[in-house]
């Protein structure tokens, strides 16, 4: 993985000391809140419902065991013993004291981490396929380019005050595990007919109150021109993005209003000025970054490990976990292992300090010291030998990290909701917890096949409800929490925005309503159909009927 050079170290250390001084001046009363707020936000420090919240960037969701141990230490020493992994592959601490934040940032800097650009109208943490570099279906490791974009976008003077925040996701695989169609810019590594690898460039996707699927403005961009082309997109947006209306300021609105063709023309025109200029990657830089992402020293193993089959036959619970939580690795004899942060009754994405420490130890023992964070709020051990799987699974069970539900009904994305967030209209986490308690039979969970529920506590859609197969949106109706259900959303290559199925449900009806939707699917599905397939075939009618027909 990428290691800071001297410049990176000096820069991050300098920012920590700057913030230390700013915080001291605020605490002494010489800075007002209005003066201080932009500084704290530039360092990822929000003020939420109950306390400050610190959002720490995890570039493209890759962590070393050493970094994970530091995150555990921060949770224990400065917070309340847990952290929350987010849909942007970051971690949030919900209870830090302002007076401690400079020390927390110094601790993070010691392991090459920071909270810069995790807030504000700038280019945020670059996200990527969580299985980058190890997925069997990958053309190239997208993290190389995510890292290049990270370096280019960090404190980019021209793009530090954009009309609105800006999110970029990169994938190198055939399957989209990074929701690139729902980012301001989505990049997919593709191979042209002549074998050259470049990027398909998608622009203008997003969720929030106006969900949009990104448009492909360039089917193939040679890798050498990545930065000049991104710069061209950002320049067009920076000039024309709506600064007069917060709700219309994202690039998706610009692309939608001017039209994809006109927007593409403007980008291409701007690019003609920039192409081949100083912003292009200097010779040797790609190779320099690439060297940090060379594959680790894998052992040469047989592709098939008969022992796993024997263990799975002997232990059905292990077999269920293998079936649900493992993904094919590009290296023979290795597996990508998902650690579910969606155990029954637990807040989605939360991990305790003890769990984080244990995961760091397990990463050292079984995964070449590496951990990933997924945008679906789970963790990954990306490099596990098939022969170690049974032992790893046994170690994960007592930690509450072996729930065999990846991609299933209880693998729920949920925003923090009104339990933490000052923007929320309703709680999200208690609904997620209640759903995991309702669907707590593993055989039933697996029988329901792939089924993704996503819950947001307000229209900002941090819980990705628009792209949930079943989406749940919390609303405030005359002072009560109500929940709107959407059906048919999809964050992958077959991207779709869910449609509202009907009137909202109260907090004590919504779990029943979800179960009604699920049971309806079971009743009407054709053999082998996933929920999404059934919904696409039949539309909302059978679900509306079972939810709203008078009994």
């Amino acid at each position, binding site marked *: 993985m990428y290691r800071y050079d001297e410049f990176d170290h000096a820069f991050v250390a300098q920012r920590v000391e700057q913030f230390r001084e700013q915080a001291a001046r605020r605490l002494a009363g010489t800075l007002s809140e209005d003066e201080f707020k932009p500084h704290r936000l530039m360092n990822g420090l929000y003020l939420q419902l109950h306390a400050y919240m610190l959002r720490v960037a995890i570039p493209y969701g890759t962590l070393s065991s050493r970094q994970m141990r530091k995150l555990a230490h921060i949770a224990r020493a400065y917070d309340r013993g847990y952290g929350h992994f987010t849909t942007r592959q970051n971690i949030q601490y919900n209870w830090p004291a302002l007076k401690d934040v400079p020390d927390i940032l110094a601790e993070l800097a010691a392991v090459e981490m920071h909270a810069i650009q995790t807030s504000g109208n700038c280019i945020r943490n670059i996200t990527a396929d969580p299985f980058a570099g190890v997925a069997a279906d990958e053309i190239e490791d997208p993290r190389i380019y995510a890292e290049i974009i990270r370096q280019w976008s960090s404190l980019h003077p021209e793009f530090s005050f954009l009309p609105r925040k800006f999110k970029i996701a990169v994938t190198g695989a055939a399957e989209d595990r990074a929701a690139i169609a729902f980012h301001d810019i989505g990049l997919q590594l593709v191979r042209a007919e002549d074998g050259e690898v470049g990027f398909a460039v998608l622009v203008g996707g997003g969720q929030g109150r106006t969900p949009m699927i990104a448009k492909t403005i360039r089917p193939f961009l040679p890798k050498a021109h990545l930065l000049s082309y991104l710069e061209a997109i950002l320049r067009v947006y920076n000039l024309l993005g709506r600064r007069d209306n917060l709700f219309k300021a994202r690039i998706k609105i610009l692309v939608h209003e001017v039209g994809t063709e006109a927007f593409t023309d403007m980008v291409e025109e701007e690019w003609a000025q920039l192409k081949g200029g100083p912003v292009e990657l200097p010779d040797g830089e790609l190779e320099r970054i690439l060297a940090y992402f060379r594959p680790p020293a894998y052992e040469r193993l047989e592709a098939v490990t008969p022992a796993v089959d024997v263990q799975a036959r002997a232990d059905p619970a292990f077999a269920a976990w293998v079936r649900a939580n493992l993904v094919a690795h590009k290296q023979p004899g290795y597996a990508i292992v998902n650690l579910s942060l969606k155990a029954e009754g637990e807040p989605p994405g939360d991990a305790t300090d003890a769990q984080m420490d244990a995961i760091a130890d397990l990463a050292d023992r079984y995964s070449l010291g590496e951990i990933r964070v997924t945008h679906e709020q789970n963790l990954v051990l990306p490099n596990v030998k098939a022969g170690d799987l049974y032992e790893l699974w046994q170690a994960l069970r007592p930690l509450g990290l072996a729930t065999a539900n990846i991609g299933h009904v209880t693998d729920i994305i949920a925003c923090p909701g009104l339990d933490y967030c000052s923007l929320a209209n309703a*709680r999200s986490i208690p609904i997620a917890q209640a759903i995991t308690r309702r669907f707590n039979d593993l055989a039933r969970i697996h029988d329901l096949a792939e089924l993704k529920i996503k819950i947001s506590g307000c229209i900002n859609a941090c819980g990705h409800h628009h792209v949930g197969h079943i989406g749940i949106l919390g609303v405030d109706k005359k002072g009560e929490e109500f929940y709107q259900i959407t059906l048919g959303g999809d964050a992958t290559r077959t991207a779709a925005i869910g449609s509202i199925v009907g009137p909202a449900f109260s907090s004590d009806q919504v779990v029943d309503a979800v179960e009604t939707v699920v049971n309806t699917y079971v009743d009407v599905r054709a053999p082998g159909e996933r929920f999404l397939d059934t919904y696409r075939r039949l539309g909302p009618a059978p679900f509306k009927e079972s939810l709203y027909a008078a009994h």
Partner: protein
Amino acid sequence: MPTPGPRPRARRPFSRLSGCKMSAAKASAPVDQVLTANRLSDGKVVFFSADGGWDERIDRARVVAKADGEALMAAAAGTVGEVVEPYLIDVDIVAEGGSAGPVPRRYRERIRAFGPSIHPQFAK
């Protein structure tokens, strides 16, 4: 499953926020106010207290009639440097039970006052 037409009033399934606190919120009752903010040093939710300081517990908050809200703001003026973004909230006074005292009318403010509903160990 729900039937068309007006939905039954939601019964909150989360114990800390239910019970007498909920039933106390009646639109017809006289409205009182307390002054709340987040403490600057640690961000904790605090209330301007009867003794003129900022306290984490709402049951020690100074309660005034809604008409006197602005006067309460004025009374706290000398101490607002200790907090961030003070504002007034409507409360009802609950007389009975272990949670006697002012209870915010809006559920957002109840969650702020009593802690996240998902972490009873952090309840106040």
